[in-house]
């Protein structure tokens, strides 16, 4: 099944939902495990509509995440742009992967982007050690199949 189109209202809604989910709707005690919702949305739309939703778009969305997370401006923007780049560079293959393999790639991409951000934070002396920063990548990978099926379903309903 090759579904490649972007429905602007759905895209906007999905981005807003992801932004809201970045700051709310998750128990505070498990905050370390919060999936990278915006990263998932970026992967989803770049995979689906690589022409419309590209690196620059992902960067802009990432900038909003910076503000929401009270992070240094540009950090998450860079991460999202990197994710978009990685998806763009491999989207023909990625489309054909079975869902489990896709989930693994999602984990790797988000993990890699977070590693870059974590590295920058450490260089700037903003954060300590540990590998906790990779937990969101794990949950993102795990949730990817459901995430993808859900937004595919929404898109098909509205097409």
């Amino acid at each position, binding site marked *: 099944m090759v579904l490649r189109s972007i429905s602007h209202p759905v895209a906007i809604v999905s981005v807003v939902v992801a932004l809201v989910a970045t700051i709310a709707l998750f128990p505070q005690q498990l905050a370390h495990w919060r999936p990278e919702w915006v990263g998932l949305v970026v992967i989803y739309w770049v995979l689906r509509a690589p022409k419309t939703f590209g690196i620059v778009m992902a960067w802009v969305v990432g900038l909003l995440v910076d503000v929401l997370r009270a992070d240094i401006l540009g950090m998450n923007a860079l991460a999202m742009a990197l994710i978009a780049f990685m998806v763009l560079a491999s989207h023909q293959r990625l489309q054909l992967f079975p869902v489990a393999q896709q989930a693994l790639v999602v984990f790797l991409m988000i993990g890699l982007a977070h590693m870059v951000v974590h590295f*920058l934070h450490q260089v700037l002396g903003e954060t300590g050690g540990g590998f906790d920063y990779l937990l969101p990548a794990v949950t993102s990978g795990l949730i990817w199949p459901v995430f993808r099926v859900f937004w595919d379903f929404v898109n098909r309903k509205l097409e």
Partner: protein
Amino acid sequence: MNRGRFINTLFTQGPLIGSRLVLVVLLSGALIGMDLYLPYGDRVRSWLMTGLTPVYWLGNAPDRVIEWGSDLTTSRSDLLQKNKALESRLLVLERRAQRYTALAAENARLRELLNASEKLDDRVLVADVIGVTPDPLTHEIILNRGETDGLTEGQAVLDAHGLMGQIVHTSAYSSRAILISDDSHAVPVEVNRNGLRAIMLGTGERGRMELAHVPDTADIEVGDLLVSSGLGGRFPQGYPVARISSLEHDPGEPFARVEARPLAKLDSSSLVLVVFSGGAATGSAMEPESAREED
């Protein structure tokens, strides 16, 4: 047609994405540098935060719906009971306030005798906590008041029990406050019993604070109340901050290990007070019954 679209999208990638990535990486680098070393970062953040107000609003919506639902389903007898409890509590507090006004007047007279300047009471503004910063390593909350309510950076934030933190960033309709438990935060405090000064550091844990550089011989005990000392000019003087929870004298260490538990309910208060020191508040701030009225 499907085939056409497929072929169309097959060749979307090209040399363009590489150059775009370089562009975006440079842009990010510039932005990171600007945010760290130049003052414009705050303004950009402020604009974006104002634009993101609906997102904050939506993020807070589930809590509000739950609150509304529980309001709706509270029974009449529960309400009556609650009302009665509140009334009796109000009586107790009013009695205390009666004594307080007399004491405040007396204090003002005594300070006059000492030729000290009179202490002004602070004005406060009530704000709702509409969010928590999602990064689990920082302790910050988002308030639903911003520049339009007269909030500025550095104002102290309290809840009903004690000092919570201070405003670190404002936008038009919301602002961000750092909590005293954040590991990058420190409050100048004094022991209420004897005026011993100390600096209280956040540790990154909600219920534990540390006092830095307390000499082994200092007169400090478990259970002592710590109030803000007003030194440093950030926090107004005299608000309760924490209570000493443990004290350890290690002969091998130059200083005592002193830990304290914050009095404010840092992770559960949903209504907070923002303090305008020296009465520089806007019209929407509440007027306290200040000691001046009695003069």
